[in-house]
């Protein structure tokens, strides 16, 4: 039975939530734009003291907003890495429009990423860096290093990065051969609309939204919970379109041919050899990840040519790798330790 006092507190919470009042500001860690090209943006975050090098360049996914990595004060992966003494940069992507519809995977892997890496080295004065990819950003980082072993990448850390697309479940089922082609899913701008991306993610757990509302109702009196819910809820409904040409390659090669596993992926007429990756690699996988299931990410260390290729397996979900309590207590300390362990003390 709900007491009148509890009901009143809940009503206040509900009003705050409905009015969007007290919604925490997202992406507040101070940063500056150090390089940009079309939709690609390279940010450098301002930390107190860098005690460990080389700088860390986080590569974000193409289909979601990067503020999930810097959600709000007290719940920010970026702020955590800064406090760990790392120099942190982020490469993210603004929403693509018609001019970006012809962007292929090569556009990202052969053009934006190498240029962003060069710009990151110039901005920090470093001669090498650690790449930290998240989700599809992990695939971009993986492919860039495989295709350009000359890039100054000291370490490669990849969070929830799918390589075996036969295990991507409902996300890939719709575009398997014989069903829809990539062209069927692009809109007039030539890109896959953000709403379709969101619907695809929602279909993965059809009852998740109802469960989230139940959690919210149960904890409406908890201001901290409601604030966190608002920030996360905003992110969950804030996707960006997927550039059409890159989506076509993803469907044809990564999903239908499962080309990363088969070793048959070709970009720019050249076969991608993951065995060419010799730098230390860490694959961070989440056991409860419903977007990139464990089986889709698990084979990664076996595919690269690095002798130092390991896995950090965590009892977390896809987003729990970078946001929330499990990120702050388990994932991020593990990642920071690995990066520092594979780095060097920063010059005073």
């Amino acid at each position, binding site marked *: 039975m709900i007491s009148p006092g509890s009901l009143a507190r809940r009503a206040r919470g509900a009003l705050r939530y409905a009015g969007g009042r007290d919604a925490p500001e997202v992406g507040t860690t101070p940063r500056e734009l150090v390089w940009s090209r079309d939709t690609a943006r390279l940010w450098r975050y301002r930390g107190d003291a860098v005690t460990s090098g080389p700088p860390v360049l986080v590569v974000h996914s193409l289909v979601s907003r990067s503020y999930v990595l810097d959600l709000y004060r007290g719940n920010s992966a970026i702020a955590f890495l800064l406090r760990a003494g790392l120099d942190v940069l982020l490469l993210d992507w603004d929403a693509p429009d*018609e001019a970006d519809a012809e962007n292929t995977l090569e556009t990202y892997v052969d053009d934006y990423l190498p240029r962003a890496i060069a710009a990151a080295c110039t901005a920090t004065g470093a001669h090498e860096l650690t790449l930290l990819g998240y989700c599809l950003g992990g695939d971009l980082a993986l492919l860039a290093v495989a295709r350009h072993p000359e890039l100054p990448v000291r370490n490669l850390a990849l969070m929830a990065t799918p390589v075996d697309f036969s295990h991507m479940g*409902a996300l890939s089922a719709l575009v398997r051969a014989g069903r829809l082609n990539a062209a*069927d899913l692009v809109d007039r701008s030539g890109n896959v609309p953000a709403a379709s991306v969101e619907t695809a993610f929602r279909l993965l757990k059809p009852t998740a939204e109802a469960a989230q509302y139940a959690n919210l109702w149960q904890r409406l009196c908890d201001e901290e919970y409601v604030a966190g819910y608002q920030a996360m809820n905003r992110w969950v409904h804030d996707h960006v379109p997927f550039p059409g040409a890159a989506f076509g390659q993803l469907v044809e090669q990564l999903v239908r041919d499962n080309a990363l596993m088969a070793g048959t992926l070709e970009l720019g007429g050249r076969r991608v050899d993951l065995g060419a990756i010799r730098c230390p690699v860490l694959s961070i996988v989440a056991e409860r990840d419903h977007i990139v299931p464990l089986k889709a990410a698990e084979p990664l260390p076996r595919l690269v040519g690095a002798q130092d290729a390991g896995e950090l397996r965590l009892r977390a979900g896809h987003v729990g790798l970078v946001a929330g309590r499990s990120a702050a207590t388990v994932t991020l300390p593990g990642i920071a330790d690995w990066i520092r362990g594979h780095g060097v003390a920063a010059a005073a």
Partner: protein
Amino acid sequence: MADRPLWRQAFDAAERALGGPAEAAVRSEAFNDALAAALRGQRWAQQEVERRTRRVLHMANVPTATDVRLLSQQVASLQREVRRLRREQEDAG
């Protein structure tokens, strides 16, 4: 269990009962075939409406969505060309 209110226990039980089958359903061949057919149908209907209204709108000298799309494709193409030239200039300089 004891900390959770009754309504929540009921909700969780229902979610446990429905969640698994719902997830299995969206992964099923039948669901994906149906969804693919629905999306194809929606696209066809959209194109059909556009085709049928185009003639009427053109008679009234009103630009159609197709005209706007063609224009924006031309702008996008120009934008890509500018980007390419800028890139070449940067690489050369």
